[in-house]
């Protein structure tokens, strides 16, 4: 092997190279499929439970619950509503909380940080991979719920939260847009998970910690004396997508969700980046 007089790489790898490899690593890990499997199983179990329930009622207290047997379009929307409590934050945390800590713990961080990519590029690739996973989980969850619901109850027109009825085509569009809006708080959860993953260097602590943060803000939101904080809680932003399911669209909760989630996600990501770039890599 020739080893002398080596020119510097003409084209250096960047965030894209890290991102692609983070996705390949995710695809090679069992925990990725546990999350994906859960995203498939939960809506299926929900639909099966509804079919098996002869009372003809839907789940109580959730938006679209009373229409859940009228059209398959209502099923993913109900699933979005109950997924916010802990299920979707948990599977988001499964990857986000693990993505840096595991590398640190296993010593592979030193393997990738002694190559030709900068630390910030490694971090950015990891963040993008965690967000991609989050999006895939959410789309899978909604998609399975929609298909399963549609197969059982048909793709009939949907009654919006304003009481108007929309065509199946528009219902599909609104469901897609609602899913996009739902990604905002999910991304904020992912940001918190990545922060905890980076600073704790402990995968389990970061995953549990992320879920605890999510549950904690829900508890805060349920205390009536603290109602003034509601608009700024992450748990509230999990309901912002409902603005899209109104006629006309209520943009206020969507816009608020965008900046409130950014207030959670961006400082968390910046803090994590600062720690990641400056940290001593001593693991392994």
């Amino acid at each position, binding site marked *: 092997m020739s*080893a002398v*007089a080596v020119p510097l*790489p003409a084209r250096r790898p960047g965030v894209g190279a890290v991102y692609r490899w983070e996705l*390949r690593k995710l695809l090679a890990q069992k925990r990725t499929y546990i999350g994906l499997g859960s995203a498939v199983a939960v809506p299926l179990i929900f639909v099966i439970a509804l079919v098996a329930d002869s009372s003809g009622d839907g789940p109580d207290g959730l938006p679209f619950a009373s229409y859940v047997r009228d059209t398959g379009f209502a099923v993913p929307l109900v699933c979005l509503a109950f997924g916010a409590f802990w299920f979707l934050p948990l599977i988001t945390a499964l990857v986000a909380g693990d993505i840096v800590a595991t590398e640190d713990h*296993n010593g592979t961080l030193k393997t990738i940080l002694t190559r030709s990519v900068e630390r910030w590029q490694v971090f950015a690739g990891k963040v993008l991979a965690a967000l991609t996973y989050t999006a895939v989980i959410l789309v899978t969850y909604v998609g399975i719920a929609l298909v399963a619901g549609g197969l059982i109850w048909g793709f009939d027109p949907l009654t919006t939260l304003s009481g108007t009825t929309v065509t199946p085509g528009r219902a599909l569009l609104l469901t897609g847009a609602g899913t996009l809006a739902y990604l905002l708080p999910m991304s904020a959860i992912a940001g918190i998970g990545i922060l905890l993953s980076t600073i704790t260097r402990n995968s389990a602590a970061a995953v549990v910690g992320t879920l605890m943060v999510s549950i904690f803000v829900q508890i805060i939101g349920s205390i009536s004396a603290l109602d003034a904080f509601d608009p700024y809680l992450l748990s509230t932003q999990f309901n912002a997508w409902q603005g899209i399911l109104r006629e006309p669209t209520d943009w206020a909760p969507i816009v608020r969700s965008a900046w409130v989630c950014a207030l959670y996600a961006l400082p968390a990501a910046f803090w994590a980046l600062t720690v990641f770039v400056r940290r001593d890599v001593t693991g392994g």
Partner: protein
Amino acid sequence: MTAPIEARGLVKRYGEITAVDHVDLTVTAGDVYGYLGPNGAGKTTSLRMLLGLIRPDEGSAKLFGRDPLLKGARALDGVAGFVEAPRFYPYLSGRKNLELVAALDGGGAAGRIGEALDTVDLADRAKHKVGGYSHGMRQRLGIAGALLRAPRLLLLDEPTTGLDPAGMRDMRALIRRLADQGITVLLSSHVMAEVEELCDRVAIIGSGRVLYEGALDELIASTAGRYELRTTDDVYAAEIASRYGEIAEIPGGLSFRGDERAAAELSVALGLARVGITALVPRTATLEELFFSMTEGPSMNGHAKVVVQ
């Protein structure tokens, strides 16, 4: 020409413990440089600072004139290696792991995977998951990963640790081959035989401080002029020998220090005094003796007092 490694005044503290204490290192092109020290002496911490994995509290390290703290990953162009055991993703195959690191290297690294696997004799196991690799195979995969960067400088941290004798022999042969190809090697080790076999220059580190840095031959030659002396009457012989040079007791005899002429005069004097000489053997210290005398003995002005018995 810029030195592959130039470290000046490196200090790393963890709380009250100073892991690396004002370490200076200069590794010149073509060196096979032994970085020798007992466990906990600061070797790995030094290597981590050289590779930019940890930040020194004081001092600076430059690789081919580039400081990893200032230049980031660009400082590692032409540099490869590993600290402690090389780590890979156990759920990926050996080849996939190399594809990963090659993707993060860019350039022609991906095109060197097959050659690197052949070099470390892992081609036939490349499709197997790393989780099933032995320690020795992982070490060799670590070397393969380093070779993808077509390095001009290779930093290896105790590469033979945990290997069986055959694995150690093969690893040393591989390092020798790479050095023969012109790669400058910094070999951190606490295995004396390995360093004596492979290295031409050494730094000996103890308690975070460099106790000796220089050519291995010179270090050993500096202990010349010593003779092991055994006689029929060591007490009387010691009295006579003290007139011709320095004398000290050692287990089973005496250690005489003086030049060849003094040794000749001593042998004549002992004969005239009717003291029988059973052995008068010139001795230089082994690296191991020097190592222990430096790392376990008192330090003087930053350099260990070298005591050869």
